């Protein structure tokens, strides 16, 4: 146990790196999810095509391969990224492709009558999306986004393959340096679990806040 305490700064640093990767990756993923999900509902064919190509490529290939491309192949094309940036981009772009389908599905789930009411009130398409559709679609997205947040956290461990010392890699370091196996892996098991619990609690809090004052659950009968 003393040895673990001795090595704890390594684990703390790894935890911090994993948190940064998760937050950064989530920011990229959410941005891509909204841009792609909404673009796939556009009336313009070429916009839909671009969004669909991104979706299919990033959903259809492995995150690890995408990471290697961003970190090892892009430099040959003249784009060199810091390991952390490459890691955040790969994780975010990968998870964002899944997220875009969540956004698209939730937007489509809003009753058609809501759009018709907006037309009758002479809203523009942007106003319709901003003030009526998204406020009703986002609560629908939340539970799935919670799941994907946890998926994203677990996905961050792939970055150790491009020289980043994240939480998983730190455990390996401790194991090599100390000769202990059970203790460091037990420690990171618990840390990952705590981090994912934080995501669960955060999403629950958001769901509660959004449900506040909306009367009966949505989707029950005509409104």
């Amino acid at each position, binding site marked *: 146990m003393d040895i673990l305490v001795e090595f704890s700064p390594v684990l703390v640093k790894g935890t911090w790196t994993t948190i940064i990767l998760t937050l950064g990756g989530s920011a990229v993923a959410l941005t891509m999810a909204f841009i792609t999900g909404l673009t796939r509902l556009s009336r313009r064919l070429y916009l839909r095509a671009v969004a669909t190509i991104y979706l299919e490529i990033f959903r259809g290939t492995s995150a690890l391969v995408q990471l290697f491309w961003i970190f090892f192949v892009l430099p040959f094309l003249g784009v060199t990224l810091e390991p952390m940036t490459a890691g955040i981009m790969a994780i975010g772009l990968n998870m964002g492709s899944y997220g875009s389908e969540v956004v698209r599905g939730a937007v489509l789930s809003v009753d058609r009558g809501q759009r018709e*009411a907006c037309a*009758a*009130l*002479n809203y523009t398409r942007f106003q319709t999306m901003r003030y009526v559709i998204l406020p*009703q679609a986002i609560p629908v997205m939340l539970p799935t986004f919670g799941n994907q947040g946890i998926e994203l956290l677990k996905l961050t461990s792939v970055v150790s393959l491009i020289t980043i010392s994240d939480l998983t890699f730190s455990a390996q370091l401790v194991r090599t340096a100390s000769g202990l196996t059970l203790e460091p892996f037990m420690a990171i098991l618990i840390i990952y679990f705590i981090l994912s619990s934080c995501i669960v609690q955060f999403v629950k809090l958001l769901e509660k806040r959004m449900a506040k004052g909306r009367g009966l659950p949505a989707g029950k009968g*005509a*409104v």
Partner: protein
Amino acid sequence: MNDNTMISFENASKSYGALQVLRNLNFHVDPGEKISLIGPSGSGKTTILRILMTLESLTSGYVLVDGQQLWHEEKQGQLVPASEKHLQNVRADIGMVFQHFNLFPHLSVLKNVTEPQRISRGVAAPEAKEAAVELLEMVGLGDKLDHYPGQLSGGQKQRVAIARALALKPRIMLFDEPTSALDPELVSEVLNVMRKLAHETDMTMLLVTHEMSFAREFSDRVIFFDKGVIVEQGAPEQIFQNPCEERTRNFLHKFIA
């Protein structure tokens, strides 16, 4: 064309694939006129309101609102299909009340009536609120401002929807079967509000309804549709007491029986 015409349909047709719902429709509505559109389901009467509200496009023909083309605009001397912007300009004068209310469930009753004023007309918050409270009191819901649509009865929801549409001060109001989704005991509270509007305002009103007795007292003119064409139109007394056409008689007979 008469200058004094609020709405005109000129050879207007609407098809969904092979199904033709309106056939070469021609009719005019004067400013301030209250008109009821009656007829069997699928006769095309709701489609007329939906075309006016820009929810459905025209297949052929023209629709004019206050002398302006609705589904077309003039570009270099030629009439071309209307842009989104043109539709928005022309439909600003039109309000609609839906069969299924379509209130915004994420907003309180008060916000359902204030937000559209702010968003689509740029009305300042205090004025929007003042107008909303006044309208909600007019429809008898002054005590429900902070409720959410999910907490209201159908009749109350429909009255909020009427207040919401009125808040934008339309010159034309479209009512698409406003009481068809309501429990029978809630119908009269909505009809009372509409009766009041018909008497106290000079708005042009088009009502699609199956409430024949209300259509009779509400309207200046009743139009009977069947299979996408106007079978007969006239003053309510004439249509309901002395219909000329066999089809009108058969249709009305079902309501009296």
